[in-house]
C-alpha cells in the first residue's frame, strides 16, 4: 500500500470530524508494484534508483564528456563537485594513495546524494536510501573493498592483525580489546554504515510525512486550522532540514568508506 493510496483514502478525514488521525507508518515505505516480471515486483524505489543512476551519469556526461580547458558553466559545476569529493573527502582521509579510489567514492557520493535528494523532489518524494536494500548493497561494496585491501596488503595474518590488534595497548587489555576490535571492524562497521544511512533517511521521510499528513488532517474550519498551519510550517522546515541531512549522510557514508580504506592501507604497526 503506497503513500498516495493511503492519503487518497483518508482525504476526507479531518480533525473534529469524528475520525482518528491516520498516522503514517511502515506502509509509507511499501509500494504497489508498477509491474511484475517473473515473480519479481518492480516498485517505485527501483524506478527511482534507476532514474538516480541516469541522472548522475547524465549530469556528469553533460559536464565531462567533452571537457574543455576553459570550462563551460556546467563543466565548472561538475568540477567543483568532483573536486570537493576528491580533495575534501578522499585525499584528505586516505592521502596520496587514495587517488585510485577516487572514481569509486565519487560515484558513490553522488549516487547516494541524489537518491537521498529524491526525498524532496515533487512526484518522487521518496528517499531511495530509506529502503535498506540500497544502503546494504553499497555498504557491501565498501566492505568487500575494505576486506580485500586489508588482506591484499598485509596477507591473511597481517590483515587480521591490522583489523584486531591495536598498537600501544598493554597486553592484558588485549584480552578484551581484540575480540571487540574483531567484532567492530568486521561486522559492526558495514552494518552501521548501512543502517546509519538507512535510518536517517527513513526517519526523515517519516517525519515529513507525519507533519504533511497532520497539516491536512488538522485543516478544518475550526481552531484546527491554526494547528494545521503550524504543522505545515514544521513540515516545510523539516524539508529544508532534510536537504542538509541528505547531503550530510552522503558525505558521512563516503567519508567512512574512505576512512576504512585508509585503515586497510595503513602500514603494519
Amino acid at each position, binding site marked *: 500500500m503506497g503513500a498516495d493510496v493511503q492519503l487518497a483514502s483518508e482525504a476526507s478525514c479531518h480533525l473534529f470530524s469524528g475520525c482518528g488521525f491516520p498516522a503514517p507508518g511502515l506502509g509509507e515505505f511499501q509500494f504497489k508494484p508498477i509491474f511484475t516480471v517473473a515473480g519479481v515486483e518492480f516498485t517505485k524505489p527501483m524506478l527511482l534508483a534507476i532514474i538516480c543512476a541516469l541522472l548522475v551519469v547524465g549530469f556528469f556526461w553533460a559536464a565531462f*564528456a567533452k571537457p574543455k580547458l576553459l570550462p563551460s558553466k556546467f563543466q565548472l559545476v561538475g568540477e567543483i563537485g568532483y573536486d570537493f569529493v576528491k580533495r575534501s573527502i578522499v585525499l584528505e582521509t586516505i592521502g596520496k594513495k587514495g587517488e585510485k579510489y577516487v572514481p569509486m567514492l565519487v560515484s558513490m557520493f553522488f549516487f547516494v546524494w541524489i537518491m537521498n535528494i529524491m526525498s524532496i523532489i515533487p512526484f518522487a518524494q521518496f528517499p531511495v536510501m530509506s529502503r535498506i*536494500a540500497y544502503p546494504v548493497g553499497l555498504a557491501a561494496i565498501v566492505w568487500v573493498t575494505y576486506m580485500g585491501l586489508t588482506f591484499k596488503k598485509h596477507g591473511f595474518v597481517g590483515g587480521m592483525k591490522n583489523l584486531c590488534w591495536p598498537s600501544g595497548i598493554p597486553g592484558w587489555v588485549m584480552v578484551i580489546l581484540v575480540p571487540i576490535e574483531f567484532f567492530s571492524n568486521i561486522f559492526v562497521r558495514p552494518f552501521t554504515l548501512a543502517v546509519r544511512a538507512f535510518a536517517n533517511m527513513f526517519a526523515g521521510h517519516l517525519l515529513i510525512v507525519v507533519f504533511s499528513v497532520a497539516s491536512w488532517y488538522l485543516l478544518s474550519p475550526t481552531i484546527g486550522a491554526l494547528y494545521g498551519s503550524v504543522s505545515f510550517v514544521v513540515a516545510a522546515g523539516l524539508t529544508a532540514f532534510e536537504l542538509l541531512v541528505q547531503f550530510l549522510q552522503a558525505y558521512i557514508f563516503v567519508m567512512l568508506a574512505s576512512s576504512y580504506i585508509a585503515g586497510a592501507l595503513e602500514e603494519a604497526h
Partner: protein
Amino acid sequence: MAPEVLLAAEEKMNPLLPAWPEVIIGLLCFFIVFGILGKKLLPSIEKVLGERRDAIEGGMKRADAAQAEAQALLEQYRAELAEARHEAARITEHAREQGAALITEMREEGQRQREAIVAAGHAQIEADKKQATAVLRQDVGSLASQLASRIVGESLEDHARQSGVIDRFLDELESKAAAAQGASK
C-alpha cells in the same frame, strides 16, 4: 511494539530486511554509475584538469622566464650604459690631458724657438758689434798711428803695436765712454 510487529507481519515488511531484487537493482545502478564515471568521464576530466594545471603552471613559468630575461637584459643595458659613460669620461679625460700636454709642449716649443731666435739675434748683434769694434779699433788705431806718425814724423807703427799703447788708449776711451753713458742714464 506488539501492533507494529503485527502490522509488519501482516504486510510482510521488516524495514531492516533487504529485499534481494532491490539489492541487485541498487548494485546494478551503482555499477552503471561507477562504470561510466570511472572508465570514461572522470579520466577525461582528470586529463583536462591536468592540462589546465600544466597550462597555468607553464604560463607562470613562461612569465617568470620572460621577466627574468627582461631583468637580465635591463641589467646588461645598465652595465653597458655605465661602461659607455665611463669610457666617454675616460676619453674626455684623455683628450683633455692630451690637449694640455700639447699646449704645454707647444708653449715650450715656442718659448724655445723664441729663445733660440733671441739668442741668435743677440749672438749676431754681439758678433756684429765685435766685428765692428774690431774694425773700428783697427781703423782708429791705424788712423791714429798714421796721424801720429805724420805728427811725429816717424813711423811708430810697429812700436805702438808692440807696446799696445793704442789698445790701452782705446780701452781707456771705451771705459770712459761707458762711464759717461752710465752717468747719463
